[in-house]
């Protein structure tokens, strides 16, 4: 039977969905190229340089604007998590640290930290490297 594009996407998603054990053991690396500007309230603005797509050449680039950087504003807890992504700590250790500081249970911290790490990864601020 011919597989639809949606089936293929679902299958690819299923293949890339990691079990909790692997995610917790993965190490979070911060993007070294990012610039951090502090706010007084403990938050910060992060600028990440973007690669110019190869297809974005004149005359397409005359029509589609290209921003050289992506900017993300983080509140104080968000900044804490970003700082904990030092390339040494595992995701589990980041969650433990965040939970201990904010008097949260592991599960409360796990839900918020993993969701936040996913957003940081999508924005190119953090890379999560797993072990086989």
């Amino acid at each position, binding site marked *: 039977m011919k597989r639809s594009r949606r089936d293929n996407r679902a299958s690819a998603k299923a293949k890339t969905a990691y079990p909790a054990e692997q995610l917790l053991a993965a190490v979070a690396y911060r993007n070294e190229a990012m610039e951090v500007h502090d706010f007084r309230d403990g938050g910060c603005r992060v600028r990440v340089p973007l690669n110019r797509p190869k297809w974005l050449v004149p005359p397409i680039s005359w029509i589609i604007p290209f921003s050289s950087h992506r900017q993300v504003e983080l509140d104080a807890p968000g900044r804490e998590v970003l700082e904990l992504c030092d390339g040494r700590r595992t995701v589990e250790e980041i969650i*433990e640290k965040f939970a201990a500081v*904010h008097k*949260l*249970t*592991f*599960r*409360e911290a796990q839900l918020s930290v993993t969701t936040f790490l996913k957003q940081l990864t999508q924005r190119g601020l953090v890379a999560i490297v797993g072990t086989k």
Partner: protein
Amino acid sequence: MRRSATDPTHHGAAPHPPGAARMDRTCWRGLALDHPAAWELARISGPNEPARLTFSDRRYHRLDVKWLQLTRKPNLDGMLDKHRRRTSKQTRTEIRDLPNPPDPWHGIVRDAPDGQVVHVARFFNDRRWLVEAVLIWPDTRDDALQRRVLESFEAEARDADPRLWQAMGLSITLDRQFGLHECRADVGRVTWEFQTSERRSPELTVERLAMPEHWLDGSLRDWLRGQKPEDHRLAREGLVHVNGHRGYELLSWAKVTPIASLRGYKRVRYEQAWQCPSEGRVYHIVLTQIRRQAELTLPGALEVRCCRDVPDVVTSAP
């Protein structure tokens, strides 16, 4: 006699032997059980769903409990046999009787690729409840822990009043006439709403909020004022002491429909908030009712406990 709300031992799990996992107690919709503190609630059934609790540790679901009311006593061995035949056919694995289950539990155990799965069931005669539990042991089965968990199951008496609700770090005692209307568990915010079945019944909301150091910009009093709906007029505000903590109370009211207003009715809202420094949480109670008197007090049996031990998350799960 009302027990001290700050006594850390009451409504807690049975004391655990040295070296054993720290236990926590969950009481939900009349069923109470002890479980390791590292098994946290991952799923909880709301008011219009079949009663169910699922506990997970950091990596796996560990305990799934379902219960339902039956009109007559079921044949537990027959039920388990049926389950054994069906599962054996599907998984093609050997399924054995659970050796020495604590009375009156009946159970079977199945070998899984990375551990064992235990299915147990029992019937509470008084409540006519059939309780089914599935325990997942990823490595080796801890018989002593399994026995402690299963022996701790208790069904509250049919006419128990007040009723204890204890889950997700929130622990309250409340008059039996208040039934659970809604239950929400967002990250760092647990909200339970209760109502009675009477007409124009009071609505009670209890919330437990985490990380106040980040969202509480000003004082708790200012935050409480900010919670008052815009159409409500402030009637009075003041200080209260709850569980030894200084808190604030606020009474406000709003107009209702024109006809009800002509009859002297108004929507009265009473709320309380306090911060528990040892837990690092803010507790918020809201009681609203449509009534003639512009005064409202919390139900007499309501007791919201705080000052619970903050779990040590660095301890590895059992």
